[in-house]
Structure formats: structure tokens, C-alpha cells
């Protein structure tokens, strides 16, 4: 075992240093060091702190933090709110990721064609992504208003009765999904558009010469070559979707809003336990679970993409 490790280290050193490029490698690491240190301080340290905190009982105010072992985790797995928020978050995340990608792909294909209006459409679709979440959520709260909302007005034009988008517990989560898709579809579209434009035109032209139809060119040339970008879209969208919070918080504030339980998601539950009940150890245990879930999903997505590449390759 030790010999294998030693061999690997020697191979790595040969690869990097024997060619006389060690100065470049050193330079790269020195240049990256500030960013890596900052990343470690603002990202990795809090994650490890949360992990440690999850084994303690702490209310933020009292300086005494007794170690309680796995008690937070044991309680968490019996907590109805945790399971409900996990279920709601999963429904939300999968719906947003799948729907936003399904909408973004044809949009990207359409906008990849040379057109003078393409840039304008890209801007229009991208605008929601760069608009801050709080004003967007407030605007959507108005759009969803049962009595005076734009959405119900549009439905009424077609003779469809008004829908209680926010106050109906059976619909409120789907209202959030619609808004979530609207928010990220432009971002996904831009990423996919870049991917499509990076596909060498010779592949598509060769397929066309071979008699492939437009759909066949998309299915057998564009889509397989888009796989790395699609993987990136899935991973980033999943992480973002599992961290949904702001819109839930805004849309459940006040009396004319969504019932909290109907749209309870994991980060909202973490927020409530930490900053409302001041149960920081318990909230940390929940945050650790969220991290593991997102990490697990990301690994699964990578594994699926790798297997697919293997099968194709």
C-alpha cells in the first residue's frame, strides 16, 4: 500500500516538476492562495463549525454549550417538520431543476440561431435571474393575489375561475415552483446557449449532409455534446433549489400569505430553529443534513454523467 502511494506521489511529482515547470505550479498556487484562504475561511470553516455545533446544545445567548452527542440528530429524525420540509424541498428542487431545464433547452436552441433579436431575448430571459429575490418575491406575491393579482386577471380573461395561489395549502408550493422556474430559466438558457455555440458547426453540417433531420441533429449531435453543460446546469440548479428560502420567507409573511406549513422548506426550517427558537445546535444538525443531501445528489449526478459518457464512448 505504502509502495503504491509512494509510486503515485513520484508520478505526480514527475508530471509536475520534472519537466521544469515547477516554477509555474508554484506561481499558480501562490496566486491562488489568497482566494483559497478566503474560501476556506468563509466557506469551509463555518461548515466544520456547524458540524461541531451540531453535537452541542446552544441558544446563542448563553455561553454554556453542553456536548450532547447525537441527541440533535436523533430528535431531528423524529421531527415532523424536518420530514415535511425535506419532502417539500425535494418536490420544489426536482420540479424547478427539471422544468427549468426542459424550458431552457429549446429556448437556447432557438436563440442559438443567428438573429438580430437574439440578444434582446437573451436579456429579457436573463433579467429575472439578476433581479434580487426580495423585490421579485414581493412582486410575485402581488401577481398571485387572489383578488387583485395579475395572474387571476389573465385567467379570468379566458373564463377560468380565480385560483387561491398562495392561501390554498394544496397550491402554494406549486406557486413557488412556477416562480422558481421563472427565476432560473434564463440563467440555464444562457449556459446552454454558450454550450450550443461552442459545438463545432462541422458536426452539425456533417449530420445534415448525411440526411439527418433538424430534430435528429439535435438529438444525436447537439444533445450529447451538451452533456457537460447540462451536468453543470443540473448541479448548480439543484444546489440553488435545495437552498430555497427567501421567496418562502417573503410569501409567508403577513396574514394574506401562504400557510407556512404548506411551503415549509429545509432552509426555512433551519432558519426558524436557529434564529427564532435559538436552537443553534439543532439547526446545525439540520444544516449538516442539508449539506450531505446536496453533496450526495451532486455525486450521483456526476456518476450518472460519467456512466453515460462511458456507455457512449
Amino acid at each position, binding site marked *: 500500500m505504502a509502495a503504491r502511494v509512494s509510486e503515485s506521489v513520484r508520478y505526480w511529482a514527475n508530471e509536475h516538476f520534472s519537466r521544469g515547470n515547477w516554477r509555474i505550479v508554484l506561481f499558480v498556487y501562490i496566486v491562488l492562495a489568497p482566494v483559497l484562504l478566503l474560501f476556506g475561511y468563509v466557506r469551509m470553516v463555518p461548515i466544520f463549525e456547524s458540524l461541531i455545533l451540531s453535537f452541542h446544545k446552544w*441558544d*446563542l*445567548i*448563553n*455561553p454554556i454549550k453542553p456536548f450532547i452527542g447525537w441527541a440533535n440528530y436523533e*430528535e431531528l429524525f423524529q421531527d415532523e*417538520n424536518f420530514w415535511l420540509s425535506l419532502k417539500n424541498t425535494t418536490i420544489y428542487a426536482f420540479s424547478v431543476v427539471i422544468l427549468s431545464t426542459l424550458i431552457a433547452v429549446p429556448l437556447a436552441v432557438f436563440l442559438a440561431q443567428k438573429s438580430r433579436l437574439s440578444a434582446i431575448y437573451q436579456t429579457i430571459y436573463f433579467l429575472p435571474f439578476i433581479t434580487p429575490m426580495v423585490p421579485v418575491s414581493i412582486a410575485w406575491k402581488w401577481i398571485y393575489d*387572489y*383578488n387583485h393579482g395579475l395572474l387571476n386577471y389573465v385567467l379570468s380573461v379566458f373564463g377560468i375561475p*380565480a385560483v*387561491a395561489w*398562495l*392561501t*390554498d*395549502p394544496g397550491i402554494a408550493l406549486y406557486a413557488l415552483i412556477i416562480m422558481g422556474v421563472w427565476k432560473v430559466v434564463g440563467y440555464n438558457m444562457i449556459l446552454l446557449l454558450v454550450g450550443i455555440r461552442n459545438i463545432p458547426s462541422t458536426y452539425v453540417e456533417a449530420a445534415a449532409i448525411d440526411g439527418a433531420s433538424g430534430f435528429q441533429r439535435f438529438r444525436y449531435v447537439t444533445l450529447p455534446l451538451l452533456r457537460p453543460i447540462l451536468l453543470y446546469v443540473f448541479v448548480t440548479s439543484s444546489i440553488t433549489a435545495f437552498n430555497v428560502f427567501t421567496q418562502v420567507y417573503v410569501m*409567508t*409573511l*403577513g*396574514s*394574506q*400569505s*401562504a*400557510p*407556512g*406549513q*404548506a411551503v*415549509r422548506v429545509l432552509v426555512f426550517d433551519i432558519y*426558524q430553529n436557529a*434564529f*427564532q*427558537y*435559538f436552537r443553534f445546535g439543532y439547526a446545525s444538525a439540520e444544516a449538516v443534513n442539508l449539506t450531505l443531501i446536496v453533496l450526495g445528489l451532486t455525486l450521483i449526478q456526476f456518476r450518472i454523467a460519467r456512466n453515460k459518457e462511458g456507455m457512449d464512448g
Partner: protein
Amino acid sequence: MRASKSRSAGLDRRAALKVAAGAGIAAAGGIAMSKKARAATTLNIWTGYPELVPYYKSVAEAYAKTKPDVTVNLLSSSLREMEQKLSAAIPTGTGPDIFDIGSGIAIKFIQAKLLDNNPPDVDAYLKSGAWNKFTVDWFTQGSATVGLPLLEGRAQMFWNRAMFREAGLSAPPKDFGEIMAFAKKLTKFDATGKMTRSGISMRLSGQGSGITEKFRFVLEPAGGTLLVKTASGKYHNGFDNDAGRKALQFYVDVVQKDKVDDPKVPHDADAFANGHTAMLFREAWVIGDIKKKNPSLDYGVVPIPRWDASGPVKGIIQPWGIYVNGRSRQKDASWDFIKFLTQPANAFQITNMTGWVSARQGVDWGPLLKETPQFESFVKPPQDIVLFSDPILPFWDEIQTRIADRLPGMFIDPALNGNPAKVAEAIKSLATICDNVLKQAGAYGTA
């Protein structure tokens, strides 16, 4: 050459003298500035009620007339954000000198010994008769007092006189039976059957402890209470009983059987101010809100009615305190300022300017009532009213919020409509949630 050298040396000496003189002046100035800086006192005040900022500023200006060396810096944010800010800042010694906050958070600071007991003069001031016994007890922890009362939340029933007249009703309801009967007459629907005006606006949706707090406006008159304190100092739920079932049944009837309110229609103070509802249970700040949004609204305010003719009139009272940070470097100045802040003239101002009712006694409310008679039942509540309040417990908000998570679903659950067994089951599940939080906190007990 020599002359030049000499001149050069002379210049150096002059320059050196200038520098020395300059340094001397600067040092003297610095000392003077330092003395001045030491003489001037800046008090940092944090409030969770942004609407109190004009009031604090006005009091600070008045205070500066007697203490010109004291200046006040204010920071305000929403209540929830302020609770978080204070919870992080007070233990780390970066908090303000003075802050206002509810008892649920204050008790955590007190338990962590981050707040000092009131100094003897403040203690004597609190017990001087300026506040009623209920309020003084509220600020008493064991044998000591901590903080001073700033304002108090009381909920009353707002009723729209014009709508009542239109419905042929001459007076507000006297009990909950009349509330429902009147609400039926006051509710309006359009041709499609869609509710356009609710008879009474209850808190039916959203999230947060406010839903449970409003539920208690019904539960308490019905004879229940959220928590019962036992002889041993432990707690258990006080609503898994007939009163709890009656209160939940009332809500279910409001929404489903009698249809006098609907989660879909506008709610709360906005709805009342804009004529979308005929009745509302709310605090005094709504009066200020109505003044801004619809000053011509014809309405009255009375205590929330008794459950039935034999029951007591019950009213919630939630004292709100102002505290001096135990780690403040300006404790004496801070105590002096909050004593000034709670003088009768300033107590009048807080109600006049913000709509929140001061907890102070001995205030001449005449000018206020002349201008806004609706304040009467807040500032001069009937003597026979039975007060109830929030227990001062660190986990109180969690209990209310966890119950609030479930209530909106129950209000609209068709299975509960006309089904007492299901209502009882629902109440039992809420009681279990409540008792579980108590058990988690080690505060549960029945004896």
C-alpha cells in the same frame, strides 16, 4: 557660504520651533478634545419597532435640553431582525446601551446574566405606583426588578359603525354568539358567490406565532389557556379541553360553516382600514394606521366580548420593556435616559405619536381622547376585565409558532366541519406539540 549655512541653520531652528509649537497646540487641542469627548455621552438605542423612531428622537431632543452633553444614536429594524441582532450583539459585548424587546428574549439575557438588576433608584421608581402591580410583577425576577415598562399591547375589538348601521345593527356584539350572528349579517358576496367583505377578520393564514396569539383571543374567553403553571413550577397545555375545542370550532365555523371569513379575502388592519371587513381583534396601533390610510373611517373600539353571558371579559396584556445593557459603558446615563423616557409627558407622546399604548399610569389622556375617542378602551380599560398575558419563558415563542404551523390547515380542513370528534383530535395533536416543547425544555409537569 557661512551666512548661507547660518541661515540654513536658522531656518532649521525656526522650523523646529514651528513644529514644536504646532505639536504643542495639537497636543493641547487633543487634550481639550479628549476632555470634551469624555464629557460628551452618546447613547446607542436599538428598537425592534421602526415606528417608535420618531418618538425616541423627540424624547432625545427634549432630553438634550436638560442634558446637552448627551446625544442619542438610533438603530431600528423589524422585530424579528432586532431579536437576532441583539442575541448576537449583547453576549459579545457589541450591543447598544439601551434596547427595547419582548420578555421572551429579555428572559434569555437575564438568565445568562447579561442584564443587571435595576439600581435602587430605578427599582424604587418602578415600584412608586407609576405602573400597576401586574406590570411591576412582570418586570420582577425573583427578588429583583430588571428593566422598565415602555408600552403594552392590548387587543380589543374594532367594529365598523357604518357597516353595522347598514346591516341594521346598533351596537357591537356582547358575546361570541353575537359575533357570529352579526358577522353573518355583515358578510357580503358577489353574484358569483365570491366573498367581497368578511364579517370578521381572523388570522387564518401565513406563519409565525401571531396566528396562535390571535387564537388565544378566542381560547381565553372560551375558558382555556395555552399553558397552565403547576404548583411545582412546571407547565402543561391548558387547552386540550372543552374550551380548546370550542375555540377551534369557532374558527372552523367562521371559515366553513357560517362562512363569515375566508383566507382568500383581504385581512388584518389593512382590510379593516379599507372597508374589507366589519370586525377585527387587534392592538391600538391600528388606530394610528387607520389615521394614515382612511382617516374618515367611522369605527368604534370595545373590549373583546365575553364568550357567553356568564363568562368574564378577558383581555390580553403584553408589557414591552426597555432595558440597559449589562455591558454598557454608559449605565448611569442610560438609566437616567430611560427614566426620563417613561415620564408621563413622554408616555403620552408614545401613544399620541405611534398608537402604541404606554404602560404608565397617571397620564392625562384627556387631549388624546378628545381627538381620538377610540383610544378609550385601550388607555382606560374597564375595571372588570380579566387580564391574561404571555408567560415569561424562553421557549414561549417556539410553542406559539409550532402550534401556529398547524392551525391554518385545521381552519380550512373540511374533515373538521361539523365533526366534533375530529376537532377534539386536532386539539389533542396541538396539545401534544405544546407538551413536547415543554418536555424538550425540561419544563413539563402536571403536578
